């Protein structure tokens, strides 16, 4: 069987099994926690396209995610559009933002690029805090229906939407990895000058990667206001997103399509468990320790560790 078909069928089967399992559990918290994990699968997968393959570390994940979340709010306030069109709007806006950022900053290498992306998040946050239309620093409320047939509950619907987004993001990551684009990005990561010298259009590929990365991060953020019912800049631009977006692919195995999925499921589950059992303040503490341990023991992530032994 075609490997692409096998991937999509496998992902769909896994998704259906997840939904069926959570329905059997019959508890809304399952969807809530599942959404939390899956949004990170999307975010980590998005980061991986630029950071994992091309080696450009984006510290601005929270900025792109918030751009997506606020795009969803804007199209709702302005045009009355709901979640799904909001996701498309978020992809468009955050994708453009990625393209623009890429164009302005890709001349910068290494840590300078990273700092520029960090600045982007700060600039955007300042903008949103002072933009009354989307609630400014007070935040914005989104009131949604409690039930939304044919789904059992609104949380189930959100979970299924995020599940679909996670599968699509992972599929895109996998397609990038197996394509010419992925090879070109890897060549850029290894040696940008040599890549250019053998005919790789480095600037164009990097722009494709920043656009794709930005769009998918925006997509990860679009359902956020619907998920929490209320969004303020502090929550949307949370440091946790920026840190997790980097830590998860690194821990799972950056530069592989499955790495971000493994890292996100592992770290987000741990954080969710800690939130419920101990305290949510512990989340970044856990991420920090995990990063330290992995950098020392398995610098190429879980997948890299297994491949080395294989």
């Amino acid at each position, binding site marked *: 069987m075609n490997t692409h078909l096998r991937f999509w069928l496998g992902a769909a089967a896994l998704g259906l099994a997840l939904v069926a399992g959570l329905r059997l559990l019959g508890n809304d918290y399952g969807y809530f926690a599942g959404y939390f994990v899956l949004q990170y699968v999307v975010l980590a997968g998005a980061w991986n396209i630029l950071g994992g393959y091309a080696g450009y570390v984006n510290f601005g994940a929270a900025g792109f995610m918030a751009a997506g979340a606020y795009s969803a709010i804007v199209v709702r306030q302005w045009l009355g559009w709901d979640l799904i069109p909001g996701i498309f709007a978020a992809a468009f806006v955050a994708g453009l933002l990625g393209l623009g950022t890429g164009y302005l900053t890709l001349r910068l290498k290494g840590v300078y690029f990273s700092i520029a992306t960090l600045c982007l998040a700060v600039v955007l946050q300042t903008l949103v805090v002072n933009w009354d239309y989307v609630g400014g620093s007070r935040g914005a409320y989104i009131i949604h229906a409690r039930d939304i047939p044919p789904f059992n509950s609104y949380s189930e619907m959100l979970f299924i939407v995020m599940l679909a987004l996670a599968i699509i993001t992972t599929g895109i990551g996998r397609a990038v990895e197996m394509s010419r684009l992925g090879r070109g990005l890897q060549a850029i990561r290894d040696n940008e000058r040599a*890549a250019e010298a053998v005919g790789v259009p480095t600037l164009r590929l990097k722009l494709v990667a920043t656009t794709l990365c930005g769009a998918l991060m925006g997509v990860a953020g679009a359902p956020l206001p619907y998920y929490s019912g209320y969004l303020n800049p502090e929550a949307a631009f949370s440091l946790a997103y920026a840190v997790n977006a980097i830590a998860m692919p690194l821990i799972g195995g950056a530069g592989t399509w499955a790495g971000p999925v493994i890292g996100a499921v592992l770290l987000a589950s741990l954080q969710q468990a800690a939130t419920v059992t101990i305290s949510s303040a512990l989340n970044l503490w856990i991420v920090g320790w995990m990063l330290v341990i992995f950098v020392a023991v398995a610098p190429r992530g879980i997948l890299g560790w297994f491949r080395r032994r294989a």
Partner: protein
Amino acid sequence: MSEVFFRAAGLGKRFGGFVALAEVDIELRAGERLGLIGPNGSGKSTFVNCISGDFGEHDGQVTLGGVALGGLKPHRRARLGMARTFQLPQPFNSLNVLENVRVPLLFAGHAAEATDRAMACLEQVEMADKARKLPKELTQVEQRRLELARAIALQPRLLIADEAMAGLSNTEVDQIIALLFKLNEAGAAVIMIEHIMRAVTAFSERLVVFVAGRKIADGPPRDVLALAEVEGAYLGKQ
């Protein structure tokens, strides 16, 4: 004699107040073997970086096959048939040898037959048996061969070998020279930049000498090496 297909006219490059290259004119005929020599810091690498597009801004014009290259990025020049190797091998370290050679082919419109063509290039440099190895598992001379394989995957009309033999043993130098002859016979003009005089004289049909950013000699190797200025530049004036 075949006609001129590469021309650098009035080439110059400054770094602040330092003139690295000034008023250099070099023409090359199709399939020609040119040796480029000069003391350290004489502008050889600056010349390569200018014509390959690494330095976007410079004085003068460069044309390849009638196309003016001004403003073109290195990857556009590569696709027009200009390939180079680097002084220090610059492999894609996370990709194996075969994938290293496939990269240029993927972006040159040969995606479908990239693997076959890459293997053919590796066979040309006698590296087919190393196809699955990672660059870091290769010896120095093998890394140089990989550089050449990646360059010839572009089917270049002009190959610039920038100190492709530095640090190699005598036998290894001979192997690389033989390889460059083979590539030249296949149709590529070669600019060899080298400090190993034995290699330059064995290979070149014509010799250009740079001193302090200027071209001071251009002609048949025997004549050029007999010039007093060249001797002076290399051995010091009496």
